């Protein structure tokens, strides 16, 4: 089956444009607030679709370098978490700290890019 058109980003863009440009100006109070939160959530979805796949590849590579073996991203991340908890990796470990910092920056780029500027 051919891929459905228009593609997901275009469809999402059209939905956000309607909410932002046509619906929002007609709203006040409760629904204005909830719609603002909804528009932000759709922005998160858009950025995640655009950015997450490449971030995940880089994240898995960093984790493999720290842990000394490869694997699925979720499993590698859980293993690093466990090593931190068990004290096998120190809280001062520079490679771990750099990895955590980069992973948080990646997530913020999706969830709330403005936080990085504050």
């Amino acid at each position, binding site marked *: 089956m051919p891929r459905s058109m228009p593609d997901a980003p275009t469809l999402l863009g059209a939905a956000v444009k309607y909410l932002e440009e046509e619906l929002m100006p007609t709203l006040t109070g409760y629904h204005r607030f*909830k719609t603002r*939160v*909804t528009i*932000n*959530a759709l922005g*998160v979805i858009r950025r995640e679709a655009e950015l997450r796949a490449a971030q995940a590849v880089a994240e898995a590579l960093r984790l493999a370098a720290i842990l000394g073996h490869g694997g699925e991203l979720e499993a590698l*991340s*859980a293993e*690093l*978490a*466990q090593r*931190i*908890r068990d*004290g096998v990796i120190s*809280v001062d470990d520079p490679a*771990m*700290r750099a*990895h*955590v*910092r980069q*992973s*948080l*920056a990646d*997530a*913020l780029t999706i*969830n*709330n890019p403005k*936080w*990085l500027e*504050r």
Partner: protein
Amino acid sequence: MSDTDFASRLGEVVARRIGAPGTIYGLQRLTGGANKTTWSFDAEIGNRREEFIVQLSSAGATDQPNPLADISPHITGDQDALVMIAAVRAGVPAPRVRAILEPSDGLGPGYVTERVAGETLGPKIVREEKYARARSMMTAQCGAILAAIHRIDLAELPFLPYQDAAQLVAAQYRVADYYGLRHPAVELGLKWSAENAPKNPRRTVVHGDFRTGNFIVGESDGIRLLLDWEIAQSGDPMQDLGWVCVKTWRFGGRGPVGGFGKREDLFAAYEKAGGARVDPRAVRFWEAFGCVKWAIGCLRMGMRGIEETGIERCAIGRRIEEPLWDFLTLIDGRDE
């Protein structure tokens, strides 16, 4: 209970406990949750109209069993009132309690306080030009208010729960495990907190949620009232000085203290107002651990989002990295 029933019972309470005739005007619900509702009203006392708040707690009737209830123990509505009464006596601008409800009042547990006008919304207070004068006063006010809270005699409030820093960190580990969270940044935050928890601190009354957003602020006089005493506890007083600096509560304002002030000005005001000597390292610990605690709070809200309040709570789940980023910035020494 219908609204008219409620109004007439409330009127009787006011007449009996505060002053006759107790006629109620403008009763309106301000906030309501599963356990607690807040109403605002005016009442005729003698030949004057006075402004009040009534807070009702629903005695846990509709409360679902919560496996994490003991993580941040809430004191009950009546105890809440007792803490505020002790705080007012110590010179703290806490809500003035005018009546504590009794079973014979037929309204359930709760209390009536005087209502104070002003702004509570953090973003307005820290950013709007009309609050510039207030902001210039608020750091010194925070220092003086905290010094007064920390001087309250703990023996007056024996029901306040006590947990030291290590126990508070252990409680947050339990929340993370309850949700099956395996997150390297959260683990880093918890491990760092466990390793850096201050030992043998002083033990005082701690407000527990002392921050911008819980202050009622006036344009010309700054902090008029400190709200939200329901997680008051006994603990390390430095906890309150750290929590007010957590970046989330700066609401984009300038200055690490609440979005309006400098840490050293807060510490100086606290000491000048008779607070004990400030330990900046302990304050920094509480700010850093506060970030980790709030990150786990985001997780909790995000996880119960769809069942409870939908999109808004879900979106808070996606804020988990903000305080973790602030935590790292703080322990890296890159913060302001």
